[in-house]
């Protein structure tokens, strides 16, 4: 990880296989699955993608700094996209961000529920085991018939 200084391509690139899959998906959807990207083109595309991420990050970072925020938030990303000439991307990004936050919320809700029970993890596991045992007993009873 320490060779990152000069932007050593490997770590900071995108996985070729993933990119290849995406290329295929897009070309097929575009209506012509017989068209293919040459290897050089794919690699060039990857470079472009990394450049895009860097561009957005840099702009978003500046926007965050102007607001005296230390963490780059989603809003900074959408603002960056507006500034850089990609306003058409914003609605879909907002959607993805909303969905992600919903998932986060329900994850946290489950976590909080566990915490609120006032029991340690061991106690919860013990309780769970107890429930399993009871269920097993019931089952054994029925099966014995």
């Amino acid at each position, binding site marked *: 990880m320490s060779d*990152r200084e000069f*932007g050593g391509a490997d*770590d*900071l690139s*995108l*996985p070729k296989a*993933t990119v290849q*899959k*995406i*290329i295929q*998906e*897009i*070309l097929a*959807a*575009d209506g*012509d699955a017989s*068209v*293919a*990207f*040459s290897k*050089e*083109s794919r690699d*060039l*595309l990857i*470079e*472009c*993608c*990394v*450049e*895009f*991420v*860097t*561009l*957005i*990050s*840099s702009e*978003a*970072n500046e926007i965050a700094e102007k607001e005296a925020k*230390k*963490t*780059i*938030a*989603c809003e*900074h*990303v*959408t603002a960056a*996209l507006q500034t*850089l*000439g*990609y306003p*058409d*991307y914003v*609605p*879909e*990004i907002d959607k*993805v*961000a909303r969905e*992600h*936050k919903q998932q*986060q919320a329900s994850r946290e809700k489950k976590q909080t529920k566990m915490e609120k029970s006032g029991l340690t993890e061991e106690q919860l596991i013990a309780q769970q085991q107890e429930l399993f045992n009871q269920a097993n007993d019931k089952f054994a009873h029925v099966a014995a018939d």
Partner: protein
Amino acid sequence: MDTGGDETHESASGGIEVKTKFPVARIKRIMQADEDVGKVAQVTPVAVAKALELFMVSLITRSAGEARTRNSKRVLPGHLKAAVMGDEQFDFLNEIVSKVQDAPVAGQKGLGLEGEEEPEGKKKRGRRKKAESPEF
């Protein structure tokens, strides 16, 4: 999927839905390779990944379009370059594509063969070189 011919006008992805997703952790790493970039909220790389996906749809479809105009079944670096040159949104890529040779002028038919504008030595398929087809 038949949302009309204008690829980028209706929705940013022109109705194309991409199922394969970028690894969010990798995106975060690329972001933080910039020393100025500090902390990043958890949702942020997810947002950037989505933007990247839309960007790819745009660049790939345009590049494929450039290839098609030149009657090529293979999308070559020159086609990507043409796509970049053709849209302001891609200005930031000018330097990256500047090292690429230009593709031949669009609309030229009957140049017939695939990909001859690639720099020498890169062709792995070299069918032409082996002079297998006598009618050449």
